[in-house]
């Protein structure tokens, strides 16, 4: 393989899309439109259409928020951590994972706004001078969330963009259609000079180093939305590491879910290879074991604490009305990934894809169980509603719309921008 082959192969992926691409795009747009309709309906008729009932006043939207923020972590893990450890296999998948991070943050960040009773006043979350001298409450984890997510989004966009810069210049110099002015503008006049590469290397390493603690802080802060309350099932000191581990786990699963169709859709089989998936499969097994330990510790802490409310909440979780969801979640997250211990299964795309989908389902359910079942079993037995909370069609539509938005953004990205870091692949090619 030559340097020129790499350029041609990867830029070929940006060629005219086929019918499958447009069909997928149309389906995603239709689902997104449904989600927008659901949100418009909620704005018109109020948050009551979301099916909230005391004491369950946080439900699907917060579940989605935590889920999507969790998905962001694989980008940082795969791209930044593996970069810092000089793991060569990252090059095939780093770009896609960085893009996934950005789009997952964008999608996740919508949910606190959707969850607001009056979403048009979301800007009240921002600390700005006003005539009544009111400031936001910096002691509230909701404000911590705002700062954490905006910071993470900004840093992730910079990380993605800096990595893209040399490849945008290549696209500018090779592609001769309507996209060229876009590449010219976005590549900022990059010429590949020694000076530029010197500072590029320095910045990319620094951003990778910044992104790792930032990612850990973001999901820790998301976990503190729960842990700083006194609700049994939420008020736990292990929540931060537990959420971070879950985030990495779900992020890797989503990465596999996206990469398997992407490589065949864009003809990138030579660059995203079996060993990439094998490594991701191994990562999934390791994180599944960490999650199994975390689940065990959750229940152990509840039992060992001697706190009756904690014990009752966890007992209700595995035997009460949410038990089917709890057991499904446990099976998806702790048992199913173990089949990837077998190399034969780990390297079989169909099996790996199925496991990744089940982990995605399991991780969404995990967030749902944490959010809803804890609220459904708080300190007041009168609140232990016998009526099972059911998400409404509005919540389902908005949730489906969020998935459509995420996949749509990803699909557009991989057709507009080089989906693999060409310059990093070229770095590994020996020129004779």
């Amino acid at each position: 393989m030559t340097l020129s082959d790499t350029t041609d192969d990867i830029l070929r992926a940006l060629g005219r899309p086929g019918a499958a691409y447009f069909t997928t795009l149309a389906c995603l747009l239709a689902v997104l439109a449904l989600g927008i309709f659901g949100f418009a309906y909620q704005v018109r008729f109020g948050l009551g259409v979301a099916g909230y009932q005391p004491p369950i006043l946080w439900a699907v939207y917060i579940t989605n928020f935590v889920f999507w923020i969790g998905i962001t972590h694989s980008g940082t893990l795969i791209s930044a951590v593996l970069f810092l450890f000089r793991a060569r296999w990252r090059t095939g998948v780093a770009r896609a994972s960085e893009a996934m991070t950005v789009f997952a943050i964008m999608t996740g960040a919508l949910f606190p706004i959707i969850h607001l009773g009056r979403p048009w006043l979301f800007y009240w979350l921002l600390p700005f001078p006003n005539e009544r001298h009111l400031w936001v409450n910096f002691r509230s984890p909701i404000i911590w969330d705002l700062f954490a997510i905006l910071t993470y989004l900004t840093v992730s966009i910079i990380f993605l963009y800096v990595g893209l810069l040399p490849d945008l210049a290549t696209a500018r110099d090779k592609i001769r259609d309507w996209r060229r002015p876009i590449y010219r503008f976005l590549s900022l006049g990059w010429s590949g000079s020694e000076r530029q590469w010197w500072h590029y290397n320095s910045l990319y390493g620094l951003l990778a180093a910044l992104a790792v603690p930032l990612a850990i802080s973001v999901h820790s802060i998301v976990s503190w939305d729960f842990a700083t309350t006194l609700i049994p099932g939420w008020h736990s000191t292990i929540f931060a590491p537990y959420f971070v581990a879950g985030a990495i786990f779900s992020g890797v699963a989503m990465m596999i879910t996206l990469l398997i169709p992407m490589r065949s859709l864009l003809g990138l089989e030579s660059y995203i290879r079996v060993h990439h998936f094998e490594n991701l499969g191994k990562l999934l097994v390791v994180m599944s074991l960490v999650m199994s330990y975390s689940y065990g510790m959750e229940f152990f802490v509840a039992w060992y604490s001697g706190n009756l409310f904690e014990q009752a909440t966890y007992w209700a979780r595995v035997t009460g009305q949410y038990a089917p969801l709890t057991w499904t979640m446990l099976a998806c997250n702790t048992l199913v990934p173990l089949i990837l211990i077998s190399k034969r299964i780990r390297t079989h795309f169909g099996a790996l894809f199925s496991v990744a989908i089940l982990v995605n389902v399991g991780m969404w359910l995990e967030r749902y169980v944490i959010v809803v079942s804890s609220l459904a079993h708080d300190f007041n037995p009168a609140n232990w509603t016998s009526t099972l909370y059911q998400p409404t069609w509005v919540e389902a539509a908005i949730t489906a719309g969020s998935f459509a938005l995420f996949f749509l953004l990803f699909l557009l990205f991989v057709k507009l921008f080089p989906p693999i870091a060409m310059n990093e692949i070229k770095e590994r090619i020996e020129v004779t």
Partner: protein
Amino acid sequence: MSKTTLLGVYRSGTQAAAAITAVREKQLGVADAYSPTADAAILGARPRSASAVRLFTLLGGIVGGVIGVAFPAYTMTTWPLIVGGKPPLSFPPLVIIGFELMMLGAALSGFIGFLVMSRLPRLQGGSPIDRRFTDDMFGVLVTCEIEKRAEVLVCLEQSGTSEVIDGG
């Protein structure tokens, strides 16, 4: 004394690095390299001080961290409303906001530093010196005095150049 430029085009970074080293050792002029990738041989061909991007990042982080602590502390003291029994000026939120803004400041400042140090953006006159240098070729652009042109040409050719373009 009038100057001229010569551009050597190479197939590999190692050849380009050899040309840079030769021009530098013989003090024939200033050689700039262009490459489609961060080539280790080229970047190691001459001694360099650490990138100033690191300094930008450090300063941005310090400024962001200070703002992240000072601003919430200011708002807490100007609006000392007790919420949930917590003291108006409590330490943990300051750490969290301070940390986040430190990261934000560091990343933004590092990016700005990168643009400044790399002399970007060049939206108007910034077209690449040769389109091949973002694809599969490596270039060494030597700026030298006209009298040394022949010597530079020898250096470029001895390093295995596949083409030399006279910039005049």
